[in-house]
C-alpha cells in the first residue's frame, strides 16, 4: 500500500471549472425541458488534472436536481472477458433504471434489445445521464462490444446525455455521435489551474502550504493532483501518488522505467536500451531486442503514463508525471540525472552523425540535452560538444 492518501472528493474542497460546469448545466437543463440536450460529452486530460473531481461534482449537482444517473467505471472490468463485462454492464444499466434484473437475453444482442426496450419506456418519463469512467484506459477488445450494445444505441437516444471520461488513447468509435459529433469538455482537454486557482485550491485542501502556491505552481504547472501531493507530501511520495493507477506489484519497476526515460522529450524502442543501461549502470541492457524494449513501452502506455505524440514523432510521458519525476531525479539523484542527459546527448549526437537524412532533428534533440546540462552546470565534456558547423545548422 502506498503511504500516500489521495484526497477524496468533497464539494467544499472543489474549486474552478466554471466553464465546464456551465456547459454541463446547460445540457442538463435542456434535457430536463425536453430540448436538444442529448449527446455525448468527453472529459479527458492528463493524470491528476481533475477529471474525477469534476465528474463527482457533476454527479453531486445531478443528485441535487434528482436527475437519474448511471455511472459505470470500466476500471472494474480490467482483465475480464469483454463479453461478460458488457453483459454485466447491461444488467447494471437495466437494474439501475428500474428495468428487468435478470434473464435479459441469451446473447449480447438480445440483452441489449431488452435493455433498450425498457429504456424507451423509462425515457418517456425522464431523461438519463450515463457517465462512463476510464473509457480510454480500457481494453480495446471491450470497447467495440460496449459501443455496439450500449454506447452507440444510447448516443442515438434523444433524452440521454452521455459523459465519457478517461485518459490516454482516444478510441476510434464507429458511431459519429461518439466520435465526430461528441463535444469535449475543455479545450479540448481539461486544462491545469492557473496560479490563482492553484492558490485557491491549496487554501482549501492544504491550508498550511498555501503560502508555497507560487513555488508549487512552478513545479506542477497547475495540475490539481500534483498541487495537492507536492503540498502535502515529499516529492518522492508525490511521484508515488501520481503512480497510484499502476498495480502495486509493478509500481517499482514502472517507476524505474519512468526515471530512466524522463529526461527524454520523446522515446521509442530504439532509445529505451541506452537509457536503461545508464539508469541501471548495466551495459547488458544495450543488447535488448526490439521486442523487449517494446514490452516496456507497452506497459507505460497500458497504465496511461505515455502515449504517441504526433508532434514529437515518438512516445511522450504524461506531462505531469515526467515533470515531477525529472525534478525528483534532479534534486535527489543529481548524478544519475546528469548521466541520463549525457547519455541522451551522446545518443542523439551519434544518430545525427549516422543518419544524414534526419540529422537536423537529432541535433536539435542533442542541443536540448546540452542546454539542460548547461543550465545546471553540467556541460558535456568538450569532445562531446556539438560541433560549430552543427550549431550553425541549428
Amino acid at each position: 500500500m502506498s503511504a500516500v492518501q489521495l484526497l477524496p472528493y468533497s464539494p467544499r474542497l472543489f474549486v474552478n471549472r466554471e466553464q465546464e460546469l456551465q456547459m454541463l448545466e446547460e445540457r442538463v437543463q435542456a434535457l430536463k425541458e425536453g430540448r436538444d440536450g442529448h449527446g455525448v460529452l468527453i472529459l479527458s486530460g492528463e493524470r491528476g488534472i481533475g477529471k474525477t473531481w469534476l465528474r463527482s461534482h457533476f454527479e453531486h449537482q445531478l443528485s441535487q436536481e434528482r436527475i437519474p444517473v448511471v455511472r459505470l467505471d470500466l476500471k472494474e472490468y480490467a482483465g475480464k472477458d469483454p463479453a461478460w463485462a458488457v453483459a454485466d454492464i447491461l444488467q447494471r444499466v437495466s437494474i439501475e433504471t428500474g428495468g428487468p434484473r435478470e434473464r435479459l437475453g441469451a446473447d449480447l444482442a438480445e440483452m441489449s434489445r431488452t435493455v433498450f426496450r425498457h429504456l424507451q419506456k423509462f425515457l418517456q418519463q425522464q431523461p438519463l445521464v450515463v457517465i462512463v469512467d476510464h473509457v480510454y484506459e480500457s481494453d480495446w477488445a471491450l470497447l467495440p462490444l460496449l459501443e455496439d450494445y450500449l454506447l452507440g444505441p444510447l448516443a442515438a437516444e434523444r433524452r440521454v446525455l452521455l459523459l465519457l471520461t478517461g485518459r490516454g488513447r482516444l478510441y476510434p468509435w464507429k458511431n459519429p455521435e461518439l466520435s465526430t459529433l461528441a463535444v469535449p469538455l475543455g479545450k479540448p482537454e481539461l486544462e491545469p489551474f492557473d496560479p490563482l486557482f492553484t492558490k485557491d485550491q491549496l487554501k482549501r485542501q492544504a491550508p498550511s502550504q498555501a503560502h508555497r502556491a507560487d513555488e508549487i505552481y512552478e513545479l506542477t504547472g497547475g495540475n490539481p493532483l500534483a498541487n495537492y501531493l507536492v503540498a502535502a507530501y515529499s516529492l518522492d511520495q508525490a511521484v508515488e501518488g501520481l503512480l497510484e493507477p499502476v498495480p502495486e506489484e509493478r509500481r517499482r519497476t514502472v517507476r524505474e522505467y519512468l526515471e530512466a526515460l524522463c529526461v527524454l522529450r520523446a522515446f521509442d524502442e530504439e532509445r529505451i536500451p541506452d537509457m536503461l543501461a545508464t539508469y541501471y549502470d548495466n551495459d547488458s541492457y544495450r543488447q535488448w531486442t526490439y521486442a523487449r524494449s517494446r514490452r516496456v513501452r507497452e506497459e507505460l502506455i497500458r497504465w496511461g503514463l505515455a502515449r504517441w505524440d504526433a508532434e514529437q514523432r515518438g512516445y511522450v510521458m504524461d506531462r505531469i508525471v515526467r515533470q515531477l519525476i525529472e525534478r525528483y531525479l534532479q534534486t535527489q539523484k543529481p548524478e544519475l540525472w546528469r548521466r541520463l542527459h549525457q547519455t541522451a546527448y551522446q545518443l542523439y549526437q551519434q544518430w545525427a552523425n549516422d543518419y544524414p537524412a534526419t540529422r537536423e532533428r537529432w541535433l536539435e534533440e542533442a542541443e536540448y540535452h546540452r542546454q539542460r546540462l548547461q543550465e545546471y552546470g553540467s556541460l558535456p565534456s568538450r569532445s562531446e560538444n556539438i560541433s560549430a558547423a552543427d550549431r550553425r545548422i541549428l
Partner: protein
Amino acid sequence: MASSTPALHQTPDSSGVPEWLRWAGFRFDPFGPLDAAADPHLSEYLVGHEVFARVWGDGISWVFAPAGGGKTALRISVMQTCWIGQETNRPFPIPYVPPFLAWGHARPSEEEHLMALTRSGARALFLAMAHRPHWFFRLDVSERQDIANLFQWNLSGPLSVYLNLCRQSRQISPLREVLDPTFVMRDPPDEVTLQQWCDELESALAFQPAPPPAERWAHLLAVLKMLGFPSVYILADGFDGAPETIDNPMMIVDCMRPLLHRAEKWAQDNVFLKAFLPTETFPLLAEQFPLLLSDHVAVIHWTPDLLAEIIRRRVYVASGGNFGSLDAVASPALRDVETVLARSVMPLPREMLVLTRQVIEEHVRREGAEGLLTGEDVEAAILQYTQGNLLLTRTAR
C-alpha cells in the same frame, strides 16, 4: 463434396507483409483492403471529420470528390453507421447506384429512378430484416402483409426464391452474397429464428399484383415509417459508372435531374438525398440547383497533410492506439514517413495506401518480416510506384 484443393494462391497473402505487421505490433493489416466495401474497419479510419459531419444528419447533403477520392468509402461508412445497433432508431440507408446496365442508357426517367430506388430500398430492408427478425415479429398481420408484398414486388426475384435460399442454406451469408456483398450488420439471428422469420414472412404474403412504380416507392416509405425509422437517407453514388457519364459531368447532372426535382419534397417527408459525386459536377449543379446546394456541401480536396493523416489514422487504429505513425516502426534515419510518401503519390487516398503497402513489401523483400523500415525501403517503393505510374500514363501515340 469432392475436395478440389487449390494448388496455388490458397493463402490470401503470402507476401510476408502480414508477418511484418504482426512483428511491428499491428492487430490487422490496415493497408490491405483497397476496396472500401471489404474493409471492416472503415468507420474507424474516418479522416476529415467535418466531411462526415456534413453528410450525417437530417438534411440534403453533397459530397464532391475527384475520381478515386473516397466517395464510395464515405458512402459505405454512412451506410454502416446507419446499421449500428439493434433497433430502428437510426436513419434507414438506401444505397443507390444507378443500374445503368439494366437500363442500357444513361438518361433515366423519374419512373426508372423510382423503380430502381424502390428495388434498392427493398433489398436493403430485406437484408436488414433478415438480420433483425424481431422488427418483423412485433408487427401485426396487416403490417406483416405490407412487408411481404414489398419484398415480393421489389426484389429482383420472387420472395420465395430468397426465403428458400435462407431455409436451405440455414444461414444468412448466401443471402448477403446475392443481394449485397458490401452489406455489414452485426449479430445475425440463430438458425431457428431465421427459419421462423422465413416461414412467417412467407405466410404473410398475399399475392397482390404489383402497383405502378410511384406507388411502390410510396409504399416502401410508408413501410419504413411504420417500422419506426426516423428518416431515410438516399445514398446516391456511382453516377459516373457508365461510358456516357464517366468523363461527362453534364451527363451526370442530366441523369440525376429527376431525383433533384424531387429532393426538396422528399426532405419535407424526412427522406434525404445524399449524393456522392465527382468534383466536376459541382459547378454545374451549383448553377442549376442553387437552392439545393445552399447547405451541407463538402468538397474533398486531398492535400498531402490529409493523405498523411490517412496513414497515421490507420496505423493508430491497427496498433490498438499504441502509436500513430509509421515513424514508430522506422529507423531513426527515417522520420515523418507519411509526409514523404504523401508528397510522392497522386493526391488520392487509395494511391497513398498502395504506396505505403509497397514500402512494407520492399522492406520484407529486402530484409524479411522483421526490422524497422528504412529510407531505402521508402526510396525503393517510391521508385517502383513511380515506374508503374509512368508506364500507365505514357502519352497517347
